[in-house]
């Protein structure tokens, strides 16, 4: 009981079935306050779908998603197009979904380094500026759970490191749970408490250090870890066939991802 009320959101065997195929299935993980969980995986591996289940935008077709009562969520979507017809300044954007006090808005803009953009029109911002504006808006809400879909998109490498530092600082200040999505991770290991690798299902998951030192991880990721900056390459040893079966790198086809049926899920 106590354990349950502690977690912000829990996914149990959750899956989404659309147009005759499973977008993602058998997803198990939970996210707690002050925890950064990262979903990684290639395009179409179900990262956004999984995040949307956690957000409550998509109802699972299988399994169960539990969210804490009165959970306050802030969401930074992957894409947000604002065209010329919509006059929207950063100051107004900060109050998009609820009233935010002037001081909360100011603090959020200062901590994300965009206070000089307060009166700028949102559509005139560069990609990196807009990412920080979206982050500032989410932070100003003081959420329990912050979901960031590809927050480093369109941000250069130095900006990327700064952004991950910023995300960690947000976690320390707000003590909120953060669900992070990325398909191309360079700094993920330094910036996260738990990694969940998706490829239509959970391939492997756990704290980055435990996962990194495990033989399964080495086999799966072939990672190279530097002290501060973990750059890794991601190789999937199997692909998912349209009928749900799995083709392995050696050409064999089985019903499960792990030929010996031993799961590397944590």
């Amino acid at each position, binding site marked *: 009981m106590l354990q349950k009320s502690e977690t912000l959101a829990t996914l149990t065997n959750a899956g989404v079935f659309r147009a005759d195929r499973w977008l993602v299935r058998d997803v198990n993980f939970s996210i707690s306050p002050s925890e950064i969980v990262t979903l990684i995986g290639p395009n179409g591996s179900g990262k956004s779908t999984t995040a949307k289940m956690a957000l*409550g935008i998509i109802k699972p077709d299988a399994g169960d998603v539990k969210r804490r009562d009165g959970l306050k969520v802030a969401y930074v*979507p992957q894409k947000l197009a604002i065209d010329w*017809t*919509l006059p929207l300044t950063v100051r107004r954007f900060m109050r998009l*979904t609820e009233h935010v006090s002037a001081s909360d808005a100011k603090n959020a803009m200062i901590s994300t380094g965009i206070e000089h953009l307060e009166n700028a029109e949102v559509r005139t911002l560069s990609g990196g500026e807009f990412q920080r504006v979206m982050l500032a808006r989410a932070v100003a809400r003081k959420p329990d759970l912050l979901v960031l879909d590809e927050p480093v998109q369109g941000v250069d490498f130095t900006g990327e490191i700064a952004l991950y530092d910023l995300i960690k600082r947000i976690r320390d200040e707000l003590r909120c749970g953060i669900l992070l999505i990325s398909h191309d991770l360079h700094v993920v290991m330094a910036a996260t408490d738990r990694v969940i690798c998706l490829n239509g299902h959970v391939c492997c998951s756990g704290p980055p250090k435990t996962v990194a030192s495990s033989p399964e991880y080495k086999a799966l990721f072939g990672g190279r870890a530097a002290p501060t900056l973990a750059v890794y390459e991601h190789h999937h040893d199997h692909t998912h066939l349209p009928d749900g079966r799995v083709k392995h790198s050696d050409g064999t086809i089985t019903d499960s991802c792990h030929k010996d049926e031993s799961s590397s899920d944590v």
Partner: protein
Amino acid sequence: MFDDFFSRAIIAGIGVALVAGPLGCFIVWRRLAYFGDTLSHAALLGVALAFLFEINITLAVFGISVCVSVALLLLQKKGTLSSDALLGLLAHSSLALGLVALAFMTWIRIDLMGFLFGDILAVSKLDIAFIWIGGAVVLALLVIIWRPLFAATVNTELAEAEGMNPGRSNLAFMLLMSAVIAISMKIVGVLLITAMLIIPAATARRFSSGPEQMAVLSAIVGCVAVISGLFGSLEWDTPAGPSIVVAALALFIISLLPAFGPKPVRAGDSVQQKHNEKQGPLP
């Protein structure tokens, strides 16, 4: 002042412009111009039904608009045809149905032109009451759903994730649109209603730095268009409804003149300068 037909026309026209402006902003932001067109075309079917069942025309038009909105939502869920094809199908088939139904009722002689292009000079005191009371209700509801509707306009998933229930505000918006079509049909006619929704909003965009400001400005632009259009129609003996739309178009063209200055761009420039001055290390 309600005894003079011209004053009645101006009061009715202003009532419509005050509601059409803010709602028209959402039409422009959400790219729903064709949706507005569809509802107003369907209005003629509502007119036919009103004659058939001898009910109030405004109520019948509202009812038909709601039916068409719901039909659109259901057909979109089925996902067989694209939205614009569905809108075209609904718009023109309901317009044609309305015309055919009216032709069948041989015992009724109606002024079809009055419904197609409006008959603002013939508004009664009852029409004015409908427009102002209905308009006040629409504006009050719009204020209530403003934040969730605007958030859903910017991004539906973001609004839903943060507990705004965009489905509900979208439905409410469709009902408000139906109400506006119903009360403004008499003023500009079914073929020109969309113009009253879109042109003032498009004119207001150049002078607005925020959504709320744009909504208020487009209501004002609409009022100016109604007043100048009606005086123009009196002066040159032109049809009233189209004259209002022409006046709105004239205001839009004036707003494009460089003399008025593209305000939003200037604001962006000064921000850019400030940004360059302040640019320091990243946080």
